[in-house]
């Protein structure tokens, strides 16, 4: 009787390892199921001049700048239509000469946000940081 009582006390005093492992695996399953890879976001800084400032700037001597047009179905630089690859090559060439060049991106109303982001990404790739966006 005394031995039985001592065994019961020992069982209650010890940590129940089986239950703890069970709970640990439950938690592990929970984390594996609920965890998903984190999206990494990028911010592309641009300058959006006010309309009245544009007019006043036009009166002054315009600073040297590159003009990139964003259309619904493509891009153009200096009125010459081109694809993303050619645009990348051109920007790379210009950035090689002067990274401080001002890039003016002009978007048509029907062009998509993806088109604009593609051009901004190429500017970021070529370390061109002075970017202005105009709407047509």
């Amino acid at each position, binding site marked *: 009787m005394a031995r039985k009582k001592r065994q019961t006390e020992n069982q*209650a005093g010890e940590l129940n390892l089986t239950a703890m492992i069970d709970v640990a695996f439950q938690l592990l399953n929970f984390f594996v199921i609920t965890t998903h890879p984190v999206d990494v976001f990028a911010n*592309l800084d641009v300058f959006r001049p006010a309309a009245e400032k544009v007019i006043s700037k036009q009166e002054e001597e315009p600073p040297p700048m590159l003009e990139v047009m964003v259309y619904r179905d493509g891009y153009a630089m200096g009125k010459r239509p081109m694809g993303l690859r050619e645009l990348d090559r051109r920007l790379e060439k210009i950035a090689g000469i002067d990274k401080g060049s001002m890039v003016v991106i002009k978007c048509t109303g029907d062009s998509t*946000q993806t088109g604009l*982001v*593609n051009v901004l990404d190429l500017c970021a790739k070529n370390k061109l940081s002075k970017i202005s966006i105009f709407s047509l």
Partner: protein
Amino acid sequence: MRKQEEVAMGGQLVAMIDVVFQIIIFFVCTSNMQDNARDAEIHLAVAPHGRVEAQKNPLQVEIEVSSRGRVTVGRSPLTERELYDVIRKAINDSRPQQVPVIIRADGRATHAMVRKAMDTCTAAGIMQISIAAFKEKGQ
């Protein structure tokens, strides 16, 4: 006497582990609240070379533009006038610091839709804006 103390210690340890796990689960479930403030239906364009989003500035205003042109801030749809008021209030509250404005526009949205948000920022006095994009997609 010692046995009774051991029993009591064991019981307390089990309860403590239980509470710790409960707390962990609570934090795991609530930690993605910030992501819920963003509209999950907005599919950003991808910009692998863009600057990685720094630690979120509490003053920043995130304007979301859906593929249908709906403009929201913190999931609340806003008119141009309301958006203007939100930005002006943020500017007034944050002086003399500059208010960072981020435009999270769906990649399929046309520029005419995004333009409204940009023009409202300009009208409110914000000339420097950031365009959000995916640097790396999680899945």
